[in-house]
């Protein structure tokens, strides 16, 4: 008989999230543009970001302001004095042999944000630190990383400003990790510090362990779904190892997005020694005197906006949450709600439009707010049915066009009451059995007759009117 083994305990996850400040005008330490994503390799470079002998870094103040904004939004404490360090290690993508980063005295520490816990309720995730560092160059491999015969190096990314947000190991499931990233991404979007649609804009390193066990680090995951999947894979892998009595080794693993698996990159015999020391070419920086100004410049953040939506528009907590989950969606809602009843707007945008967009993998920019306003105005004037309104939205998303034209082309205008009355009379005449059943109180028969009327009016009759007229004629309840 198998000896009973201790079942693996809780899952412990900590994240290091690298965010590219790709909206700045220049890289972290030089004047090169960080907008390299559509450019030929090695065209956005200079002696500084190539690490040529003799070149010196000069700090981009915009990056510091962005980092302070993020830190404030994450409820961090801004440090009085901040310092840059050299993190020394050899790798092909690192042109100087060290990365300029922060070690002691990062720009901010001790923050927290709340996320929806997997088991319900809010959970507070502590932020250990926020710091600024430069991005290395990008390696381009022929084929998968572990069997590529050579690497090509593109230095366009070298020196782009990054902020790294490091959590405490407070996350308890892959889903919670993904939820955390959603909340973080939402805040970053509101702060307008990065364009997440660009390659490499957000990269995650995840540390994961089972309670009391050795932890592994999965590096460079570049999608939200990837984080959840990589973590799930790691948990299963680690649990299997524990069940089979095999020791988990402390190592760095690579997540293969295509295959959905993690692969060992390098085993850490011991913690790598980065020989951090203060970067002699940059002077210590104090941001204290500017914190208040930066705080004042902060836009309304998702949490505040959500609360305001509930109070100002009287919409549900759920709708407010959906509508504030993206900055542009929240703006879209406010534009529509300025013309149309906010509760009606919230329902149609959060429940209907958002669903249609998600189904098609589209963003809110695919749908002009003025079209939503028109559709809701027509709907409110009882000139189309709700079903037709959904049809208009789908048509606009699939083929484009103006709501009024689509309604006209598809003949979606609601039919007159007299036409409905005529159809009702016909349906009663043609279906005596159903009429009898209906009078005997069979609800299904009433539904059948309604269906017949809708068929005759090509679905353009207002169901309420059909219902009302049928009941009048049949005098049934």
């Amino acid at each position, binding site marked *: 008989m198998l000896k009973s083994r201790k079942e693996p305990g809780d899952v412990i996850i900590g994240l290091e999230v690298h965010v590219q400040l790709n909206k700045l005008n220049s890289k972290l330490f030089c004047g090169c543009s960080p907008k390299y994503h559509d450019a030929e390799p090695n065209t956005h470079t200079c*002696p500084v970001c*190539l*690490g*040529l*002998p*003799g*070149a*010196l*870094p*000069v*700090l981009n103040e915009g990056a510091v302001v962005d980092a302070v904004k993020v830190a404030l939004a994450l409820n961090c404490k801004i440090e009085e004095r901040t310092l840059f360090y*050299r993190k*020394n290690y*050899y790798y*092909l993508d690192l*042109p*100087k*042999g*060290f990365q300029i980063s922060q070690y002691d005295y990062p720009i901010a520490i001790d923050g927290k944000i709340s996320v929806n816990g997997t088991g319900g309720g809010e959970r507070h995730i502590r932020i250990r630190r926020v710091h600024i560092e430069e991005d290395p160059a990008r390696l381009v491999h022929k084929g998968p990383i572990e069997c590529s015969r050579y*690497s090509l190096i593109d230095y366009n990314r070298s020196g782009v400003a990054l902020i790294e947000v490091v959590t405490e190991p407070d996350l308890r499931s892959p889903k919670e990790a993904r939820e955390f990233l959603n909340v973080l991404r939402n805040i970053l979007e509101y702060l307008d510090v990065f364009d997440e649609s660009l390659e490499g804009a957000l990269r995650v390193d995840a540390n994961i362990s089972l309670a009391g066990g050795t932890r592994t680090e999965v590096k460079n995951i570049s999608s939200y779904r990837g984080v959840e999947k990589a973590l799930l894979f790691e948990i299963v892998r680690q649990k299997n190892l524990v069940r089979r009595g095999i020791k988990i080794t402390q190592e760095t693993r690579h997540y293969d997005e295509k295959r959905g698996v993690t692969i060992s990159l390098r085993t850490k015999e011991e*913690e790598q*020694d980065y*020989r*951090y*020391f203060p970067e*002699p*070419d*940059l*002077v210590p920086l104090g941001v204290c005197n500017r914190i208040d100004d930066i705080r004042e410049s902060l836009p309304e953040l998702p949490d505040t906006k959500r609360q305001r939506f509930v109070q100002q528009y009287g919409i549900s907590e759920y709708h407010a949450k959906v509508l504030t989950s993206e900055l542009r969606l929240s703006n879209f809602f406010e534009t529509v709600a300025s013309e149309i009843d906010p509760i009606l707007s919230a329902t149609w945008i959060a429940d209907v439009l958002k669903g249609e967009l998600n189904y098609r993998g589209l963003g809110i920019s695919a749908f002009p707010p003025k079209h939503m306003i028109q559709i809701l105005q027509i709907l409110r004037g009882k000139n189309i049915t709700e079903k037709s309104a959904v049809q208009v939205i789908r048509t606009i998303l699939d083929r484009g066009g103006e709501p009024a034209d689509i309604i006209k082309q598809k003949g979606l205008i609601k039919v007159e009451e007299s036409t409905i009355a005529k159809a009702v009379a016909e349906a009663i005449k043609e279906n005596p059995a159903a009429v009898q059943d209906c009078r005997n109180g069979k609800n299904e028969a009433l539904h059948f007759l309604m269906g017949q009327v809708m068929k005759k009016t090509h679905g353009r009759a207002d169901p309420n009117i059909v219902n009302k007229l049928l009941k009048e004629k049949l005098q049934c309840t």
Partner: protein
Amino acid sequence: MNVSEAKKRAEDESVEEVVTSLFDNIEKSELNAFITLAKESALKEARKVDRNGAKGALGGIPIALKDCISTKGIETTCGSRILKGYVPPYDAHVVERLRAEGAIIIGKTNMDEFAMGPSTETSYFGPTKNPHDLSRVAGGSSGGSAAAVAGEGVPIALGSDTGGSVRCPASFCGIVGLKPTYGLVSRYGLIAYANSLEQIGPFACNVEDVALLLNVIAGYDPRDSTSMDKKCEYTKELRDDVSDVKIGVPKEFFGEGIDEDVEKAVWDGIKILEDVGASYTEISLPHTKYSLAAYYIIAMSEASSNLARFDGLRYGLRLGKDEDWHTTFSEIRAQGFGEEVKRRVLLGTYALSAGYYGKYYLKALKVRTLVKRNFDAALKDVDVLITPTMPFPAFKIGEKTDDPLALYLADVNTVPINLAGVPSISVPCGFSGKLPIGMQIIGRHFDEGKILRMAYTFERHAGVRC
């Protein structure tokens, strides 16, 4: 040849003649002062000046640059095999300034590999010889620049000074060399050995030319975060008057290991300044004795990081074998770096590694703070400090190469100045036999004007010139 002689010759003959005869001198010379001669571009520039007339503060004046200062289009090797063939695609800030003022760059001078050494013996391109005695070293690490000025008739040159690398060869070769205040001259384009300590500094036969060159290279540069806007017109500070100056003589700089002739020559020098009106008092800088240890730990630590970029991947030495990248990097570095560079990189790596950082690097930084405070306190009571530049005159080539520690001791009087970041000038103050001796005048931060005035007054009254 000094600047005014060069100007006169250019007027009498032509700039082209001046430059051509310089190249003749250099090519005939046994000093090995140059690694690269920029003959073609220099002559082209010279002819241009002859055609259009001299423009700028250094119009048509030839200058030699230490080979760690980046020059666009001219090979820059740092005296190392690992950078052989590297042609920078950009000019250092100082080179931009020199070109803007019309100077003609005639070549890149020999140096200790990556500026590590006080003798120019660690250069991959062989040692530079002392113009006063070919069997002796020219000093280092800017030995090539000093020898070019002292022995080959180059009017002005630039070096870099991390722990004495301008002042030591100035002293050994009998010329004037200045290490400016940290932050006065932009380091942009200076290939780093130890960033927090080094400054680019001028060499010349006389103080006036040093001041003239400093006028050109000093000043704020937004590309160097440690650069300061503190420049003034140094040539205007040169007056034969030191009656308002209080000299401090720190006894720690006259201690054990100082050559008798050196000690006497420097005291005689102080006497001369006293005779023309300066006053002096003996003072103490008690933390000086820890300076050397702190200096070497800081310099080697920074060097270990600075030199990491030399991997042969994009420029410099390539061995032509394609193996996996760690093997390729390791072999290039094993073959590209000399013994002294490897020693310092290894020691620096060790000093920064986990568990030793606090014991060595952090402690060295604390000593540095104490040394700095010593200087600040002393320079409150007195205006300048005077000491010997080097504890002894130029030694024989090969004499100390087997004993790196003995060589490190040579820097004992110059490194505390780099730790403190204050300016310091070495002026010739006599001879030991045929070998020159240098006197070091140290000033307050950004008080280059005063030490140049001291040096200028001394030069006029002592009559020691190259």
